């Protein structure tokens, strides 16, 4: 059996790549995908600990995280469509009207 630490290191790497991407990319859709990547890493951690503690609750939480992520993707992508319709861009640096 693969030890839990291997899965945890992989999840930490995926989360870190996602966080890096959110900061370095300015395209709203790509940033969104990086957030999905981070959520996915968290799910992997949940499942690893579910196996480690032999508890079913971790799996239930992954289920909830997936549901929230799906809802978030729906609303977020609608906002991005709206943004592109109004400003003709999905670059978050261009959408600075609410910035002081």
């Amino acid at each position: 059996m693969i030890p839990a630490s291997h899965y945890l290191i992989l999840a930490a790497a995926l989360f870190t790549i996602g966080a890096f991407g959110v900061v370095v990319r300015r395209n709203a859709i790509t940033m969104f995908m990086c957030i999905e990547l981070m959520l996915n890493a968290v799910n992997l951690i949940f499942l690893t600990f579910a196996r480690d503690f032999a508890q079913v609750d971790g799996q239930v939480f992954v289920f909830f995280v997936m549901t929230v992520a799906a809802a978030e993707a729906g609303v977020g992508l609608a906002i991005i469509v709206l943004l592109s319709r109004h400003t003709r861009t999905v670059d978050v640096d261009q959408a600075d009207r609410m910035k002081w």
Partner: protein
Amino acid sequence: MEQLVFYSAALVAVVSALLVVFQRRAVHSVLALIVCLSSVAVLYFQLGGYFLAAVQVIVYAGAVMVLFLFVIMLIDPESEMFVVKRTRSLLLPALVVAGVTGGVLSSVLLSFPESRTPGMPGGLRDIAAALFRDYLLPFEITSILILAAVVGALILAKRSD
């Protein structure tokens, strides 16, 4: 065999995650993300979360990513706004964020002792029992959340004229 599956899936996951970040075109990022999510589904399967591996492929790599592709196609994928030049000025802050995140995460996660008796409790029956008995209220709240998301997305995306 187990080792081989784990390491190849992990390698594919990390490489495709990097591709998600560094592809210049958003469509290519979506395709890389599908590969990444699928290889993580393989890891779920290996961990014993068979149900969630299936859900991951169907809902995540399937439905959510198709939604992303739809939106990119809706906003012209050939247009310049998806081929944004990488801004050099953000590379340093991003590296700082990545370093801090990675350092904190790996130190916290690796501080947990390895379990003596690991084992993924079961199949669909256990998950269903937990979901519909112990977590019934959160489950119902999730349905309200989905409903709110559907209504919100409809109102947002509707043309207001």
